[in-house]
């Protein structure tokens, strides 16, 4: 069984449903002992900046702030697409717990080192 799992999230407040379900899956993976990476790209980068996900609370699911903090406390990490953040003028001075700026190389390395990683995209 592969031990690495990747969730790519391309939405935030523009599609809170997709952003939320993506984080729920990421939480399930981290809570199941998977080394889990959430790659935040496109509009999803906003989730990586402190405070930006605060207003997201999709009906039927835990609020985004809780999903983000639970994920980090279970060892999950975020890779925030640097050019996606830059083109949106997103302030990345303060990132959520477990997040760092990066890009395609970091994602590909994670997915191809120590076996292969399963992945889903939202």
């Amino acid at each position, binding site marked *: 069984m592969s031990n690495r799992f990747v969730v790519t999230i391309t939405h935030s407040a523009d599609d809170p449903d997709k952003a939320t379900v993506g984080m*729920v899956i*990421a*939480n*399930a993976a981290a*809570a*199941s*002992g998977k080394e889990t990476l959430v790659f935040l790209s496109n509009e999803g980068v906003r989730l990586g900046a402190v405070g930006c996900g605060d207003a997201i609370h999709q009906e039927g699911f*835990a609020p985004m702030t809780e999903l983000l903090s639970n994920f980090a406390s*279970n*060892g999950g990490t975020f890779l925030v697409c640097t050019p996606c953040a830059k083109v949106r003028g997103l302030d990345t001075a303060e990132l959520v717990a477990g997040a760092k700026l990066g890009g395609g190389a970091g994602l590909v390395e994670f997915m191809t080192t120590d076996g292969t990683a399963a992945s889903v995209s939202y």
Partner: protein
Amino acid sequence: MTTGGYDDRPEVMDVRGLGCGSVLVRLAQKRKVISESTTILLWTDDAGADEELPAWCRMTLQQFGGRLDKVDDVWRYELTLTPLLAKQQE
């Protein structure tokens, strides 16, 4: 600890109202705070629990004791959890 005593009753974890991933997060958190193998009685109203709980147990090598019963819209499952040591959490 002797068997059959009050302290040996399975501990109840009431996760009613929580869906899907949130239940698994609670179970993972529980494994971090127990110091020995612990049997719990999980109360859930998540209709996906029949699939989710055994899958989580297989991935994390926990013991799935099965679904015991259903009272109103609440299912009760038995799970035996082992501690998740700090080293494994890194």
